[in-house]
């Protein structure tokens, strides 16, 4: 009798509560849907559902020329569109076997790092907002605004920039841009320290909410395929910018910050430190920025000429016509995988070319996609508020996850 009772007690539990978190939920950073089975507040099972933003980017890209696929890349991770474009251009350049001029490389590096700052401050700020600290959110959006203004100054767009081109960048940056950006980098480390970190770094509640939450060990993180700050928080110094440098990353000095415990707090610290490193990279790039053209000499074969040239110059008109109808000429047959470090992690482009002007297959390895897949591992066994902390810490953008 007694034995029956005890087995009954271990086998039968209280009725589980299944809640559907999302797709419209303030803490899911987009249209992520998590189906959570709860026992009290403890998460027993977490099933992510993605795909609400699926636009078939890969299929679309197969039917577009290499140039016209570029705007699709803006819309992957829409808060760091510059990095995606840079990554795509690097990949296509490597496929074509061309090289962007030095100045363009430095400009791209500057832009990527600006994007990294704006993406990381959004990531940290929305994470903090989810946990309940809302002031940081507004502080960081003030600073992001400055960066977006600078983007607008250079390419006319704030969010979906489409600024880099195959073989360089669309146009040169102005001196005013460089001056303003340099001013920004002067003050930014102080802002990080005095406004972001003092607000939450020493906050007992923030520490309690983040330390020891969502712990994942280095081996496990690698096994799950995590990248970016999400991986580095576990102490793995894997950074594509260091391991396989592209653009001007091999010419600048920077550190790869790593965490120790692999918890939410360490990942947050990594992002904070990366802000400083990005700031450092931008300063170095501005200081070292060489003079020269911003488009490769053979770029007209790959990239649309400027509009005024088209109207006045015969060569350019022909290039424009050919590029629009056929795509870049002389795409060699072959396949290439190029990984770039975008703010969220490793964004990989696997391009298979069949020798035509359109990619035969364009595969996007999106970091957010992999990071969402690790959510059940992080959330199961945790309690409901930790789910929010975990969603924030992997810093996902669903546009990239669903492609």
């Amino acid at each position, binding site marked *: 009798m007694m034995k029956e009772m005890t087995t009954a007690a271990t086998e039968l539990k209280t009725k589980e*509560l*299944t*809640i559907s978190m999302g797709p419209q*939920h*303030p*803490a899911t950073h987009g249209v992520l849907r998590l189906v959570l089975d709860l026992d009290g*507040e403890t998460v027993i099972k977490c099933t992510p559902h993605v795909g609400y933003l699926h636009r078939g980017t890969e299929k679309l890209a197969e039917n577009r020329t290499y140039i016209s696929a570029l705007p699709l890349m803006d819309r992957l991770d829409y808060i760091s569109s510059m990095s995606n474009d840079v990554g795509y251009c690097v990949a296509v350049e490597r496929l074509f076997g061309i090289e962007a001029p030095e100045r363009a490389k430095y400009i791209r590096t500057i832009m990527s790092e600006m994007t990294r700052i704006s993406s990381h401050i959004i990531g940290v700020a929305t994470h*903090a*907002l*989810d*946990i*309940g*600290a*809302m*002031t940081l959110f*507004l*502080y960081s959006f*003030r600073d992001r605004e400055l960066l977006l203004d600078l983007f607008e100054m250079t390419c006319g767009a704030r969010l979906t920039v489409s600024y880099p081109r195959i073989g360089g960048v669309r146009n040169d940056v102005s001196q005013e841009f460089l001056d303003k950006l340099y001013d920004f980098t002067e003050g930014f480390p102080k802002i990080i320290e005095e406004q972001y970190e003092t*607000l*939450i770094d020493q*906050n007992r*509640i*923030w520490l*309690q*909410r983040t330390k020891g939450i969502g712990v994942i060990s280095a081996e496990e993180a690698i096994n799950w395929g995590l990248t970016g700050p999400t991986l580095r928080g576990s102490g793995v110094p894997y950074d594509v910018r260091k391991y396989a440098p592209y653009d001007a990353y091999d010419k600048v000095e920077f550190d790869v910050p790593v965490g120790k415990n692999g918890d939410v707090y360490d990942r947050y610290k990594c992002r904070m430190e990366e802000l400083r490193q990005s700031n450092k990279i931008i300063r170095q790039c501005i200081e070292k920025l060489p003079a020269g053209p911003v488009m490769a000499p053979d770029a007209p074969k790959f990239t649309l000429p400027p509009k005024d040239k088209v109207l006045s110059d015969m060569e350019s008109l022909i290039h424009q016509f050919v590029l629009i109808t056929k795509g870049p000429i002389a795409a060699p047959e072959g396949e290439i995988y190029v990984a770039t470090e975008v703010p969220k992690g490793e964004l990989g482009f696997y391009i298979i070319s069949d020798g035509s002007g359109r990619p035969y297959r364009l595969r996007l390895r999106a970091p957010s996609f992999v990071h969402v897949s690790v959510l059940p591992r992080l959330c199961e066994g945790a*309690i*409901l*508020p*930790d*789910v*929010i902390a975990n969603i924030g810490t992997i810093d996902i953008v669903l546009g990239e996850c669903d492609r």
Partner: protein
Amino acid sequence: MNILDSALSGTYGYLFNIAIIFVKIAVVVGVTMLHVTYATYFERKVIGHMQIRLGPMRVGPHGILQPIADMLKLFFKEDIIPSEADKPVFKIAPVIPIFATLSSLAVVPFFEGFVIADINIGLLYLFAMSSLAAYGVVMAGWASNSKYSFLGGLRSSAQVISYEVAMGLSLVGVMLMAGSLNLSDIVKAQQQYWHGMFLIPQFLAYFVFMVAAFAETNRTPFDLPEAESELVAGYFVEYSGIRFAWYYAAEYVGMIIMSSIAVLCFWGGWTIPPVIADSIPALKVVPGIVWFLGKVYFHIFLYYWVRATVPRYRYDQLMALGWKVLIPLALANIVVTSIVKYMS
């Protein structure tokens, strides 16, 4: 003669007394509701300026008419009741918190001699009413028949029960020092000291009380029942229009009540410390209500300040804080206070 008779008897007979009481109730409720509408405005302004933005600016100069616009909007919004909700409970739930908090005002002395019901168990009455406010939350959570509201309701009931204990215990020290549960007497008892406020000998109790007060009113960092990032809006996720407004108003009246208790029990209510009053006699001319409101506004500002600064606690951490930190602290305070009182 019982308490009802005593309340009704007086020099001018029943009817006059009843009329006086009604006038007092009307004044207090009216003024409080006005303060509540503008408390929302000040919250948005204060937090706005803390967060380097302006807050409401559109309706009237500096958005001064914003709360009125909000109120009108909430009045005329469609009142949506979920089809699977328990309708009577769903409808009655928002009335309970506003009823409980507004009736708490009855025992709050705003200045010398102005109190609707000067009862001897004033503090106990306040506890009773604040414990009732939990019903509105629990009933809303249950009646909405939504899982998010349900979780919010569960969290809230547990939270309110836990923090009620800490809050009650924290005020025992004040009761011991004042030797009374009557709020006017508590204020008068503070005047016997040079500092004129229990805040100084009872700083520990004040700390416990303020933390518990934040939790009782479901404000940040204890806003778990309505945590917008986890439970969307918690127990009132299904409410709209005027029923939502009742909850909103009740939260702010609750803040005013809690601030008033803090002011009355720890800050000397409408009085100023005798030390200051003696050194600057001119201050004695200032009416008591000014000091009272000033102190209450300071506490309400504290609510906003905390809201703009700290993140939200996790549910288990909240419980741990309540049971493992606040209650032992409050008990220690009681022990120390009684020993000191016994010795002297």
